[in-house]
């Protein structure tokens, strides 16, 4: 598998602030890659370096096999980019903007006509003839994704494409991105975990300018996610929760609204042996005991949650 993006030892310093601190990252061709991190982690800075808008303080960045250092036209010819807040010429219509964007790539004639028609359809803007100045945030974001696709890029990079959108707008944009699977490498930054779980196959988690995890989502869940056990008893749940909380293998214990007890465990085997013993010691009736599913949020909190208030 070839790398669409290869970042080695990337550092970016603004004054006394180290925005990126030795980032290493490989994004394989054909993947839908979620670049996850809390606000201020350095996601936008990474994308600005990748697109040649900013220069690295040190380190090496290669896109589609070429160094970005020169950020020459040949690299830009093959990428699509959507910034976090895309700026459009408000006096243009969506069709005019897509034709303009295509023109910047040298597209003309019937090829440009076809591309623009397909992308307007994809963005759901075919019948919209108002100027972009009157567009909603969601319409602008969909147009933003469409303009990033006008050159049929080998690599599409998007910065927080779904933030600030309502649920329907988010779904529209995620559907647009998911529809590209297998045709284009998609690399997008976000702090919205459910978006990543929904469409990405691979993720990297960035925190304070460093990549703290990197790999297929299932691998990360297996590697970093604290394992969970869910227990339900007929009565005495509160006593049981308190008792389990004192066990050495229980990291956190949560009593859910429906009366179940959700236990994050550090040693799954010890928990499986110890839990029934605690339940039996009080003569409680065990209704359910099962392994809970680890989601990306657990991984995220495990990796970047520590030290945050």
């Amino acid at each position, binding site marked *: 598998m070839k790398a669409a993006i290869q970042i080695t030892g990337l550092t970016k310093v603004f004054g006394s602030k180290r925005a990126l601190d030795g980032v290493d990252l490989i994004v394989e061709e054909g993947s839908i890659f979620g670049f996850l991190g809390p606000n201020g982690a350095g996601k936008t800075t990474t994308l600005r370096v990748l697109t040649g808008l900013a220069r690295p303080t040190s380190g090496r960045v290669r896109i589609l096999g070429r160094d970005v250092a020169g950020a020459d036209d040949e690299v830009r010819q093959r*990428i699509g980019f959507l910034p976090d807040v*895309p700026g459009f010429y408000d006096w243009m219509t969506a069709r005019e903007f897509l034709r303009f964007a295509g*023109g910047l790539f040298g597209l003309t004639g019937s090829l440009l006509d076809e591309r623009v028609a397909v992308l307007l359809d994809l963005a759901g803007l075919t019948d919209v003839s108002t100027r972009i100045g009157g567009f909603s945030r969601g319409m602008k974001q969909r147009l933003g994704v469409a*303009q990033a696709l006008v050159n049929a890029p080998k690599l599409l990079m998007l910065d927080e494409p779904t933030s600030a959108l309502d649920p329907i707008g988010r779904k529209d944009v995620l559907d647009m991105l998911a529809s590209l699977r297998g045709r284009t490498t998609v690399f997008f930054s976000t702090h919205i975990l459910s978006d990543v779980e929904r469409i990405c196959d691979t993720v990297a988690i960035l925190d304070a300018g460093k990549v703290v995890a990197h790999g297929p989502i299932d691998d990360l869940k297996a590697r970093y996610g604290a394992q969970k056990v869910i227990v339900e008893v007929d009565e005495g749940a509160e006593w049981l929760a308190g008792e389990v909380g004192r066990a050495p293998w229980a990291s956190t214990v949560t009593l859910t609204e429906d009366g179940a007890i959700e236990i994050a465990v550090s040693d799954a085997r010890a928990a499986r042996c110890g839990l029934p013993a605690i339940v039996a010691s009080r003569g409680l009736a065990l209704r359910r005991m099962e392994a809970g599913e680890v989601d990306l949020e657990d991984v995220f909190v495990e990796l970047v949650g520590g030290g945050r208030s």
Partner: protein
Amino acid sequence: MNGFTAFVRKEATEILRTWRILVLPGILLFFAITGPVMARFTPEILKAVADMPAAAIKALIPDPTYLDSYGQWAKNLSQIGLFALIIVYGGIVSSERKSGTAVLVLTKPVSRSAFIAAKALVHAAFLTVIVTAGTLVTWGGTALTFGSAPVAPLLDSAFSWLVFALLFLSLMTLLSVALPSQAGAAGVGIGVYALLAIAGLSKTLTLYTPVGLSSAPSVLASGKHFALLWPVLSSVALSVALVAAAAWLFSRQEL
């Protein structure tokens, strides 16, 4: 079509479809239409309102000629026309950075130099067209108002101002790259204008440098001679250098 020509087309269309088509053309057209009329009737208006015998006024203000009309055009261009240009073009680059449109364009195959060159070229052409049109209207208005309007002094005057205006367009392009604020760039631009006017006290600078073009339009419009060769050549060279400096600086900046 490549990225450069697509961007040139955008820039030209933007002039036609936004406020840009109203401001400078509107100001120049207003001066072109009112200038000859004002030149012709100002003495009579003064006669009507001044509490002086007509003979005394006539002694103070001689009968106007077509040269007064040309002088009016040159004065309006050199003052309000140039100030308007400086203010309008204070944001020629920074406005695209502020609105985020520069990022969308410059992550496509358009180099920073091409971005700057396209803007400078299109707006130089735009200025040339509106100054030419305004000058033709002034000439027609002068002919109608005064009956006679020899074209040479007006053309020389307008040409010298156009070269001066293009120099300021180049300067504002550089300032708009260097400064994020349109008002800040315009302030510096007006400061440069004031410095050039002061430098005009030096005869050597007036004869051989762009400084000469701050006074040349009025001198030429009055029918007097002004040696334009060196001021024009040095202004053109400086304009090219300023645009090149803007492109160089823009290429080094992070967006």
